[in-house]
């Protein structure tokens, strides 16, 4: 095991997969010479050269579309969107093309490709650079959506995503790049897509979370333990495929659930998770499911206002206390 941050874990995954498979190529805005706006692609140009690591024009729709063509033509492209907010300029290629091509062409075209996109709020980047758009992709059949929380998962999931034959939206949280954790040394270490992980065992309530909200949920669980509440924290790791079994079984055992997501509340990931729990675990529940999610506003710039829009540890603690008090 080695300790490293998410940025280095992702960087390692990219290097390992590029060494392993010459069909892996990377492109995006400022990924080569500039080494990425978040430096995830540091050192790649030097090691792999400009045929495999390529700067593109600021043409997001074509960044994705060209990767689709490259994937159809026998490569495994990893396209980087500078931030997930710019995915909105590429939604035609992501939703109308990348997600549809296999199906509408009768299964005759595979698209082994990854779209990496940093996102999330908390850096005071205001309304156009702070979004959590995972719901958009999770809502679209044909896409896989990875949302790692830890350096080990970041590395393991990215390697799996690159090796997978489906298009994967790989959503990185900007505030996690410097977050540190233990990462296995084995260069063949991977994390399968579609398998959630119970990051903390508990008996009283299940907290379902992903990406940065997993870390906040673990902190909340720590605090709640001091007050005698035992929380189980399920980290989804991928939203598609969605590992329903792991969190549903956990909820059936604990009988209470809080679902946590950074995206906006209305029609957010939390809504899907809560509905899924109600549909499948209603008889096991001793309290209604609570959602903790982002406020339904465009992200404000001022830090005094921004902190109100993103779930905090105390919001998760309060939600857990609430479900502990409620009874059907």
């Amino acid at each position, binding site marked *: 095991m080695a300790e490293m941050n998410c940025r280095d874990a992702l960087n390692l995954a990219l290097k390992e997969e590029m060494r392993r498979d010459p069909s892996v190529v990377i492109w995006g805005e400022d990924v080569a010479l500039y080494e990425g706006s978040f430096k995830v692609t540091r050192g790649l140009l030097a090691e792999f050269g400009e045929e495999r690591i390529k700067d593109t024009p600021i043409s997001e729709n*074509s960044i994705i579309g060209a990767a689709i063509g490259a994937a159809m033509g026998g490569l495994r492209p990893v396209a980087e969107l500078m931030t997930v907010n710019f995915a909105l300029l590429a939604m035609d290629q992501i939703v109308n093309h990348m997600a549809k091509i296999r*199906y509408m062409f*009768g299964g005759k075209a595979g698209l082994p490709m990854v779209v990496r996109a940093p996102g999330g709020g908390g850096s005071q980047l205001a309304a156009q650079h702070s979004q959590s758009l995972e719901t958009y992709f999770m809502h679209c059949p044909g896409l896989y959506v990875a949302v790692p929380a830890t350096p080990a998962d970041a590395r393991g999931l990215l390697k799996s995503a690159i090796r997978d034959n489906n298009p994967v939206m790989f959503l990185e949280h900007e505030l996690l790049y410097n977050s540190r954790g233990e990462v296995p040394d084995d260069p063949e270490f991977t994390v399968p897509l579609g398998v959630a992980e119970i990051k903390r065992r508990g008996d009283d309530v299940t907290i379902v979370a992903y990406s940065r909200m997993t870390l906040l949920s673990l902190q909340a669980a720590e605090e709640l333990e001091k007050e005698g509440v035992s929380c189980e924290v399920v980290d989804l790791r991928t939203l598609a495929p969605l590992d329903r079994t792991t969190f549903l079984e956990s909820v059936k055992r604990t009988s209470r659930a809080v679902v946590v997501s950074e995206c906006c509340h209305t029609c957010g990931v939390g809504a899907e998770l809560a509905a899924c729990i109600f549909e499948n675990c209603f008889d096991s529940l001793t309290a209604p499911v609570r959602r903790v999610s982002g406020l339904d506003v465009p992200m404000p710039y001022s830090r005094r206002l921004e902190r109100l829009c993103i779930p905090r540890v105390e919001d998760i603690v309060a939600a857990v206390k609430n479900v502990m008090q409620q009874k059907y």
Partner: protein
Amino acid sequence: MDTRLRAILPDQQLLKFYEQMTLCREFEESCAEQYTKGHITGFLHLYSGQEAVAVGATAGLHPDDYILSAYREHPQAIVRGADPKVVMAELFGKATGLCKGKGGSMHLFEPELAFMGGYAIVGGQFPIAVGLAFASKYRREDRISVCFFGDGAVNQGNFHEGLNWARLWELPVLFICENNFYGIGTEVRRSSALADIHKRTCGYDIPSEKVDGMDVIAVYQAVKHAAEWVSGHGRPYLIEAVTYRFRGHSMSDPGRYRSPAEVELWKERDPIPNFARRLIDEGIATEDTLACMRAKAAVLVEEAVKFAEESPWPEDDEVCNDVYAPVGEEVCPWLK
């Protein structure tokens, strides 16, 4: 320059042009009939009038060259080698269709023929063609990507992104605009500040030319020359083929935005009878040979309709297949 047909191509190839154009016309007119009968549903965009482009262009390419197109693409797939039966079955939504009935008229696809798809979001195919060209170049394959599109697509951002990208990365892409003058009901001069589409590549330092899209030989020669240029230089090129669709944008379009006189004028330039006249005048074919070819095409299309009619519907459990890749699937088996 000797412009006689025999100076350009052997008789066999010239007759094949006629045969293919006739098959395309028969196929499309039969589609219209099947649509009226309710056998083909959804959107149906027919190619009648534009046959010289699909036939001439395909002949000017190497069979390995990738072809991408928009949603008026049945003839392009058929000329490339797709079985008319299987294409018709796709239009009927049957299990035996080219894409198992999941794509329909607008999404034909056969990678074994390097026919890389019909795309129904205007201009969606531009970046995909660019990416395929990158893959070919990266893999040191000797093939180019050919991207067909209509005059309506040139005001999409994708057109400009694609031209810039292909030139910037020096990728072998041949862009072929089928300018039939109308994006649905909007005439090109009402949508484009510069209606001479081929001139629009100057901002990207991409050579281009305009060709008579009603003349199969002119299209063949232009595309052959351009494809060789693209392959040799490893850079993009654009051809504007000026053509005309005899029918509306789709089956639901009565075409009131065009005067009957205009349509009649273009029908006088119908690429099929005009080419037939040249074949007869130059002694390459007799009226009988050509009539025989037309009859043969009609039989092929009748057989296609019969096959589609008799084919089974997809099973219900097929509906969730092909959303994701099955475990262990081989990617791009056609490249092996």
